[in-house]
């Protein structure tokens, strides 16, 4: 049972890490960034480059984030910027971007799956009758750092105040002298950097291929959909969906597990149309 709980926490950490970038872009810009999966894939390939050159696997984390940030900034300036206030068009445009990125990656790195060095390797250690893998600890740590770090930034810094102002009322924020264009650029780049970073975190225990982002963007979308706009809600939503997936895989079948990740948010939205965040706010 203890091991199952650990599995839920690990999977929840991965879900949280993968979806936090999507949440930030959605909350500040009101844009559903479907290129999120493509940036995640870019992060995976950053890890591939690091492995191919025989560099220290840890280097893949900052490299992925930096590459994601720069490419995100470029895409915001070229494409996303022109589509604000047109939610449906942005969904289409970012999905198109994702397809272009996937094709470029296929062209550069080949279409087949690639494998990267493990960031955290080493033997598992035993607690009672439970084996704990160092990689699981690593993913939990990453999610904790991201969650706590972002919460602190939003609560206690000027950047956080600006971000919250833009979330609450973009028009008013602009009249107060906040450069919302600049905020948008940085937000999009940050979201992309987080996606790429998440990509580099998850690939050592699986594999990298040009289409790896698609299932993850679906998962991230579902987690954010269930959460609504709020970091604590995102955490709850990640834990809930992870529990659904892990427990259904364990007690029923792996197919049911993957199915629940999609079915669960839909049911939830029927009950709470704005996700878990409204439920939290109503207390």
């Amino acid at each position: 049972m203890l091991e199952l709980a650990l599995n839920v926490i690990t999977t929840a950490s991965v879900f949280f890490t993968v979806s936090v970038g999507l949440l930030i872009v959605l909350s500040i810009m009101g844009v559903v960034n479907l290129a999120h999966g493509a940036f995640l894939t870019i992060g995976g390939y950053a890890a591939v480059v690091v492995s191919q050159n025989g560099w220290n696997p840890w280097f893949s984390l900052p490299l992925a984030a930096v590459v994601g940030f720069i490419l995100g900034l470029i895409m915001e300036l070229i494409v996303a910027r022109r589509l604000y206030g047109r939610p449906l068009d942005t969904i289409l445009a970012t999905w198109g971007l994702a397809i272009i990125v996937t094709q470029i990656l296929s062209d550069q790195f080949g279409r087949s799956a690639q494998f990267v060095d493990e960031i955290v390797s080493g033997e598992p250690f035993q607690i009672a009758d439970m084996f704990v893998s160092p990689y699981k600890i690593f993913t939990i740590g990453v999610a904790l750092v991201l969650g706590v770090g972002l919460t602190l930034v939003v609560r206690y810094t000027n950047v956080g105040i600006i971000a919250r102002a833009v979330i609450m009322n973009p028009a008013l924020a602009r009249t107060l002298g906040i450069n919302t264009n600049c905020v948008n650029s940085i937000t999009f780049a940050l979201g992309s950097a987080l996606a790429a970073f998440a990509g580099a975190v998850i690939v050592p225990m699986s594999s990298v291929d040009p289409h790896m982002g698609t299932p993850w963007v679906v998962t991230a979308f579902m987690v954010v959909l269930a959460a609504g706009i709020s970091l604590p809600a995102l955490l709850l939503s990640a834990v809930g969906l992870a529990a659904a997936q892990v427990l259904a895989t364990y007690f029923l079948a792996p197919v049911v597990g993957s199915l629940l990740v999609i079915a669960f948010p839909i049911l939830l939205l029927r009950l709470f149309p704005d996700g878990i965040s409204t439920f939290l706010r109503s207390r």
Partner: protein
Amino acid sequence: MQLFAVREYAFSLALLAASAIGVCAWNTQAQSKEKGATVGFVAEFSGNISLIGEAGMQSAQLAVDEVNAAGGVLGGKLELKVGDDASDPGTALQVWEKLAAEKVDAFIFRETSAARVAVLPVAEKANIPAIYANAYEGGDCRPVLYTAGEIEPQKVAPYLKFLKSKGASKIFIVGSDINWGRIVADMVKKAAPELGFTILGEEFTPYNTTDYSPVITKIRNSGADVLISALGGTPDNVAFFKQARSSGLMQSLKVVGNLALDDTTLQAVGSAAKGSYMVASYFTSDSSQANQKYLSALKAKFGNDMKVPGIYSEPAYDSVHLYALAVNKAGTTETSAVLKALSEVVFEGSPKGAIRLTPDRHAAMPIYIAQATQEGTYKVVESLGVQQPPKQCDPQPSFGMPKK
């Protein structure tokens, strides 16, 4: 406006004329194919099986070079038309329909069992010979089909017997959730009790599963000491074994027996699968002269891009050679003559030794058991000798589709 209409009319006429000429040219080409032959080669170059697909492609290309260097077929060249099935049965069907429309003389294909079931009706409908360059669960007896690789009924029982001798008896089966995985799991379940095994559980995961932790926990909690893995595809094997090792599962199991972790995939898995066993008709480390020649020819042709061949890619090499031999023996690419000739020729140069297909549409071959090393390679630990496939086809399929 009038002028435009006339122009448009002239343009359509020109187009029509051009297409008519094209059709004529195409027709003469079809008729002049008395020399040489064109084979549609379909494998996975993208998606989760792509590593094996690329290895299969290299083996096929090498064999085509060798055939053409030795005089080709019917006094002309043997040519490959390559198709990518993207590891997806739906895409596979489209690729086959396209190749059948291009009137290939035969299909040689290295695809999953799920794709095989989807695509073969295309070959049957067009009455085109098909050689399955893969190992599979057995039992496919379509009139147009031969299989050049081994089938699980040739090896599951002796393999289980070997695993039993390692001193463990409680089995958990994990497999890919496709027809192959489930059929093979059933074979294991059927053969196991007689050998003194008990089956404690089974689990099937979809392709491209990235999180194996619940399955790993389930295997451990079942109390099994033998894991039989029928996971297919490189990403799934890599994910499973890396996670199994890092969560201590590999250490708590006595025996791990793979059914689909070939040399090509093992190289990507690396040391994580160390100590696990595999049963196959072919291992890259085979020291026979024929295998060394095959490996050095691959190396010479592809250099650093060479993919390590394994049981799922080497049959492509045999298939191309067998097809060339059969066409030359039949003296034509006509379907029933080629299919008949396929049961009469022997390919002596196979890395496995001589390969002879039977009218039962399968082939006898030597079977080995090997153990994975720290370096991600297999070391043969036992030879089971030449294993005959149990009778697969009853009644015997005809050579080609019956005439209506």
